C-alpha cells in the first residue's frame, strides 16, 4: 500500500522510457566511442599496440610510415592507447552504434 501515492504520480507523468531508435540521448562529454587516427601526427612508435589490453591494434609496416589496423570487434574502448600516444594521434569519437554482422576491421591508411 505504501506505493500508492507514487503510482498516482506515475499515472500523471510521462514515461521515462527512451524510445530508442526515434529518440537519442546526448553523448556525455568524455564518451569513449570508436577510435580514430590522425595520419599527420602518427610517428609509428607502436606504443598504442603495446598497451592495448585487447590486442585490437596492429602496426602495418615499420618505421615512421607505418599504418594502423584497428580491430573494432576486439576493442574494449578503454582509451589507454589515446592516453599513451606521445603525439596525440589517436582520439575516441562519439560513435556508439557499432554492432554489425561481420567483424569490422578498420585499415587506417596514410593517403
Amino acid at each position, binding site marked *: 500500500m*505504501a506505493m500508492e501515492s507514487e503510482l498516482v504520480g506515475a499515472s500523471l507523468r510521462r514515461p521515462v522510457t527512451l524510445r530508442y531508435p526515434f529518440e537519442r540521448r546526448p553523448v*556525455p562529454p568524455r564518451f569513449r566511442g570508436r577510435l580514430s587516427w590522425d595520419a599527420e601526427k602518427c610517428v609509428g612508435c607502436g606504443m598504442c599496440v603495446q598497451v592495448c589490453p585487447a590486442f585490437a591494434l596492429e602496426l602495418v609496416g615499420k618505421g615512421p610510415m607505418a599504418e594502423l589496423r584497428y580491430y573494432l570487434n576486439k576493442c574494449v574502448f578503454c582509451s589507454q592507447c589515446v592516453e599513451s600516444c606521445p603525439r596525440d594521434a589517436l582520439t575516441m569519437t562519439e560513435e556508439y552504434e557499432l554492432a554489425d554482422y561481420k567483424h569490422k576491421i578498420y585499415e587506417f591508411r596514410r593517403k
Partner: protein
Amino acid sequence: MSGESEKAVFEVPVGPQHPALKEPILLLFKIEGDIIDDVMARPAYTHRGIEKATEARNYIQNIYLCERVCGICSGIHTLVYTQGVERLAGVEPPPRAKYIRVIFLELERIHSHALWLGVAAHELGFDTLFYYVWRDRELVMDLLELVTGNRVNYAMSTVGGARRDISDEAAHQIKKGMEIFRRRLDVYTGVVEKDPTVRKRVVDVGKLSPHKAVELCAVGPTLRATGVKRDVRADDPYQAYDEIPFNVATYPTGDVLAQIMVRVMEMYEAANIIDYALDHMPKGPIRTKVPWNIAPNEVISRGEAPRGELFYYFKSNGTEKPERVKIRTPTLANLPAVCEMLKGYHIAEIPIVFASIDPCLSCTGRFAFIDERHDRSWVWTGEQLRAYRRRYYKWQNR
C-alpha cells in the same frame, strides 16, 4: 504413519539455468516437504581464465582486464588492482586522485546497491518497485557517465592516480544529484518498512546469526546485516577513507530485511561521503609518474566492494608482466553463508534469500577440484587443462 522414520527428502536442482538466478550456478536442494533441509552450491559455470590471462599481459593492460572481472563493480576492481601495483612499484598517488577515486567508488556503490534493491524487489514479485528503483538509479548512472565517460566500465583509476579530473561544474551536478537521490531513497525506505506484502516476505526470512556469519567468513553487507561491524573502509582504510568521517551501517536482525536496510543505509552513507569528499577535495595534480621497473615482490591489496571485501594478491618477477594475480571476489566468500541462510525456509523463499547476498557469480569461477569422499583437493596446471580441452573436443566431435 511414522513421520519420524520416513523423511520424504527429495532433491530439487535450481540452476544453472533458472529465471530466479541471472547468472549460472547450480544449487542442489534437499527438500523435506516444502522446507529446505540441505543445500549444495556449485559455482564456476563461467570460468573465464582471467587470472591466467593476467600473466600474459603487462601491468597496464591488466588494468582493463581486471576491470572486466565484474560488470557492476568494475570500479573497485580497477582500484584494488592499481592500488596493488602502486604498492609493487612503490608509488603513492597524489591526494586529489585519492579523493576522485573515493567519489567514483561511492557512486558505484550507490548504483550497485540500487541495482540490487531493484533485483530484490523483482525476486519478491514486486516489479513496480523494481522499475522505480532502476529509474532512479539512472540518476547515478548519468553522474558516473558525466565523470568517467561511460556507464559500465569507467576506466577511471590507473596506476599512479586517476585518469580524469572532476571539474567544479561536475562536482556541483553530483551534489545536486545526491540531493535528489536522497529524497527518492526516503520513499523506498518507507515502502520497504511499511508495505505489508514486502514485510511478510522479508522479516524473519533467511536468518543468519552473527556467530555463524563470522564463522563462515561472510563479508560485506551480508556480514553487517547480522550486526557485526566490519568494513575494510573503516578497519583498514585505503585511499582517502581515513580522512573522511563515515559510519559503518549495521542492522541487528540478520534476516533479508536487515540485508535491505543495511544496503539502504550504505547508500545514504555513500551520498554523505561523496558530499564530504567533494567539499574537501585538495587541489593539485591527479597523476604521478610511475617508474615501470618493478622488482620481484609479493603484495596484497584489498578494498570494500559493494558486495564485500575484495582481495587481490600479486607476485611480480621483475619483468613487465605479473607472475601471479589472485583475485578473491566477495560472492565467493559469501556462498557458504548463503547456503546456511537457506536452510529451514520454504522453496518460495529461495530466490529472495539467495539474491540477498547480491550474488555476482560470473566473478566467482575458480578452478579447483575438491573430492569430498576422499577428502583431497587439487588444482589443474595449464598443461592438464590443455589435455582436458583436447579430450573434450575429441569427445564432442566423435
